[in-house]
């Protein structure tokens, strides 16, 4: 460990230091742990729903409470768990994997975390005081409009969206800037690890998709708060407009979750097959194709509305087409395994489950992509099954795999393989029990979002099986928590590269020091830790000459990662936290009165101004460094 660099780069200790922290590893861990907490909370809501649905005509939970439960479950799983956890993984891993000292725009990243945290706590606090949103995670108007949801519930939903849009957009910008400008020299785009490609594609998608929902939810808030009529058909508005704007965002949103998971798979499989991934260019193109195509599918959520049939057919074709890049991924992974030397460590087990679950979810996705078939399956439990196969099988399983895979890097401790295998087995069995029967329930006519069902419908037994499956999932998640906590406390110290992987994050210590790499590596191959450098290198293998006593990073060019210039890097600051507080007051206040937009804007302006206020000492120091490193 380099004590000088450590002193330069670490965040200040103590409570105040924690509020000012900007280290991407700290923020990434916060994102991941917070998202996991929201995952537990939203999972608990799902368990309550399964309790209610376990038998017909149950009166355990009434409709009002049930509708809040399923709305908050969906909203929290998508907006507070799935997307942020992937972004948190990106915040932690991207700088390490591209061999950077730190993330681009660290204060903004810190700010995004606080905004995300406050938005999430706000949603669950509302649920606890019986003000939880109850119009579904899709919040269709007119149901969520001023006339049919006169309480504040829909405003809380819409404003929570504002929080998560903002934090999502900020992280996307930070990730894109880090990937494009802070890569280690020599890491050309053609040598970018596939996970980084996945995070890059996702971040661009966030940039293009989020504005749609931002517009939609702002118009909803305006309809509710100041009586505009964007969605009111009686006044010339249009209820269907909401659906277009919402799904234009929310369909790509599924891929914000799925594409990083593809990246995890492409990181884990080569490591445990002991060979480079097969078909790197095909996979990169597939990731990009998936990103593009995912913007052309949104109408398949609206097949039951009376959009012209020919238009719907186009979206059927587009929805079918997105299976092709998925197929390319699967075949390339099989080809990687085919000639590999495979080991079945826990991360690999979770990755292999992906083949079964995502494949099943993808194939049911082909079914619901067809207009006529979707008219029967849409809004039934068949779709509930489909989406959980895709999201849990296609994203949460690889995510658990990723947690087992990178846990030693993040904490410096190995996780128990035995508990990992138990968790995997229970999660897989519980998942199949919980979600497989839902396919049949949907075909038997059970609609989604019902708080109860009559006994004579005959849906009781399958629902009971499904609820039992939910209990098994809960047990498996409990084992994961036990494993993580006990491993963190007592398990054996992890070596730098416990899996023998090939990417740069394994080249530094576990856990990585505040400065990530003592000297930034120079990348000379696609698999930097695997490919030996035989002939004496004409170029240096390490970056030298960066300041050690002040924060300085090397900026490289976008395509070839050639060194471009040195950049003075900002230090910790209390203002991101203060700005997030001011913004939270502004957002929450504006639910209750439009005047909060006026008065709440003042503290936001003050904190943000102070955040960017130039300080003479800082500027002079930067200038001095620029002249004489």
């Amino acid at each position: 460990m380099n004590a000088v660099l450590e002193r330069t780069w670490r965040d200040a200790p103590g409570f105040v230091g924690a509020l000012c922290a900007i280290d991407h590893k700290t923020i990434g861990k916060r994102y991941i742990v917070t998202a996991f907490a929201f995952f537990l909370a939203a999972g608990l809501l799902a368990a309550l729903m399964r309790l209610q649905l376990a038998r017909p005509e149950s009166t355990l939970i009434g409709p009002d409470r049930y509708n809040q439960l399923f709305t908050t479950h969906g909203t929290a799983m998508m907006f507070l768990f799935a997307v942020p956890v992937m972004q948190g993984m990106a915040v932690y891993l991207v700088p390490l994997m591209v061999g950077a000292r730190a993330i681009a725009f660290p204060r903004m990243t810190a700010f995004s975390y606080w905004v995300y945290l406050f938005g999430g706590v706000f949603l669950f606090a509302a649920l606890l005081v019986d003000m939880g949103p109850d119009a579904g995670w899709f919040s269709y108007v007119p149901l969520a409009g001023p006339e049919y949801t006169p309480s504040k519930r829909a405003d809380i939903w819409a404003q929570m969206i504002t929080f998560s849009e903002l934090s999502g957009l900020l992280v996307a910008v930070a990730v894109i800037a880090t990937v494009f400008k802070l890569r280690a020299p020599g890491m050309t785009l053609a040598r970018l690890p596939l996970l980084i490609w996945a995070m890059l594609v996702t971040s661009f998608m966030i940039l293009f998709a989020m504005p749609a929902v931002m517009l939609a939810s702002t118009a909803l808030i305006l309809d509710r708060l100041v009586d505009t009529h964007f969605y009111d058909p009686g006044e010339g508005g249009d209820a269907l407009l909401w659906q277009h704007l919402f799904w234009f965002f929310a369909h790509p949103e599924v891929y914000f979750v799925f594409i990083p998971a593809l990246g995890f798979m492409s990181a884990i499989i080569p490591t445990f097959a002991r060979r480079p991934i097969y078909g790197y260019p095909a996979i990169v193109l597939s990731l990009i194709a998936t990103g593009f195509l995912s913007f052309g599918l949104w109408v398949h959520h609206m097949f039951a509305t009376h959009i012209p049939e020919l238009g719907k057919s186009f979206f059927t074709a587009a929805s079918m087409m997105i299976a092709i890049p998925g197929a390319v991924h699967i075949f390339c992974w099989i080809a990687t395994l085919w000639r590999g030397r495979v080991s079945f460590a826990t991360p690999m087990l979770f990755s292999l489950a992906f083949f079964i679950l995502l494949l099943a979810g993808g194939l049911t996705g082909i079914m619901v992509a067809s207009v006529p078939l979707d008219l029967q399956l849409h809004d039934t439990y068949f779709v509930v099954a489909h989406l959980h196969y895709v999201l849990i099988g296609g994203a949460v399983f690889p995510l658990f795999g990723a947690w087992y895979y990178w846990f030693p890097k993040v904490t410096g401790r190995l996780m128990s393989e035995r508990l990992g295998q138990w968790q995997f087995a229970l999660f897989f069995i519980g998942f199949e029990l919980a979600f497989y029967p839902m396919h049949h329930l949907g075909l038997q006519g059970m609609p989604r979002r019902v708080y109860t069902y009559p006994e004579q419908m005959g849906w009781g037994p399958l629902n009971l099986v499904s609820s039992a499956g939910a209990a098994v999932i809960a047990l498996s998640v409990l084992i994961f928590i036990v494993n993580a906590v006990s491993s963190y406390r007592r398990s054996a110290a992890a070596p730098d590269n416990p899996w023998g992987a090939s990417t740069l994050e394994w080249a530094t210590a576990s856990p990585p020091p505040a400065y990530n790499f003592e000297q930034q590596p120079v990348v000379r191959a696609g698999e930097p830790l695997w490919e030996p450098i035989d002939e004496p290198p004409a170029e240096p293998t390490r970056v030298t000459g960066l300041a050690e006593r002040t924060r300085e990073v090397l900026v490289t060019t976008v395509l070839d990662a050639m060194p471009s210039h040195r950049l003075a890097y900002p230090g910790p600051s209390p203002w991101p936290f203060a700005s997030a507080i001011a913004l939270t007051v502004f957002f929450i206040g504006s639910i209750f009165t439009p005047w909060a937009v006026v008065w709440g804007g003042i503290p936001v302006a003050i904190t943000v101004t102070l955040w960017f206020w130039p300080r003479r000492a800082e500027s002079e120091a930067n200038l001095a460094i620029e002249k004489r490193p």
Partner: protein
Amino acid sequence: MRFQDVLHSAGPQARHIEALWWLMLVVCTAVFIAVLAAVIWALLRAPRGGPATRPDLSSLAQPERNTHIVVVAAVAVSTVLLVALTLASFFTDRALARLGPPALVIEVTGHRWWWEIRYAGFTTANELHIPVGKPVLVKLKGDDVIHSFWVPNLSGKKDLIPGRDATLTLRADQAGTYRGQCAEFCGAQHAKMAFLVIADPPERYDAWAAAQREPALASVDRRGRDVFMQRGCATCHAVRGGGAAGDSAPDLTHVASRQTLAAGSVPNTIGHLAGWILDPQGIKPGANMPTTPMRPEELHALLAYLGALK
């Protein structure tokens, strides 16, 4: 009984879709098995390794030509299958659009949480009667929030969106009773917004329609009618020929001829009717029907009155 089931089609619309379902299921299952077999085969044939195993970098030096061919072929086969399924979907879509000119037009309006059903000359609720073998055009209107009209045994669903009228055509080829249910989340009682479609032979249907077209019997018990008019029922409900003309709740002109109450929540028996009048919020929390406390003799008279509205 499978009276709300996608795979028990009783009309051409649902039958076309069911055929498409079986085609998709067969193709997708075959693909599922083939891909998983390839994964399992790959895992079985690959030698075991571990973190210390030297990574095999040979693929970087020379391309794996045979693997290339197999992977490209697999992607090509997937694409061909996808195109085939897309075409199958399009042809099914076309078949659905060719039901022929309707013999009957019914207007359905979705309300929170019941179905208003208008025929030429009369209005009923939560129960459609249709003649077997004749195409029926259902006009769908949204009144408050979005609902979705769905009778899986007969046809796919269609949304009722305020401000955007839609239509649906269906035909029942087998006489019988089919259940439908609102399929778009519409608030507190989305779960209890069902309806029945009763497909009868044409002559029975005609008899039913003729009976429905008649106003309510004039000779009914006057005391019950007075309770109905005085205790607020008539504010929302209509009884054609009985003096009540409310229009924000189901038309009760022939309520006793219907099989269920409260949009399929409970069977239409005298006991359930009494329970529904006295404690609607217990049966359907959040419904717009207010709790109406009554003296026993009032309730008796009201039940006798409503029970006579056949």
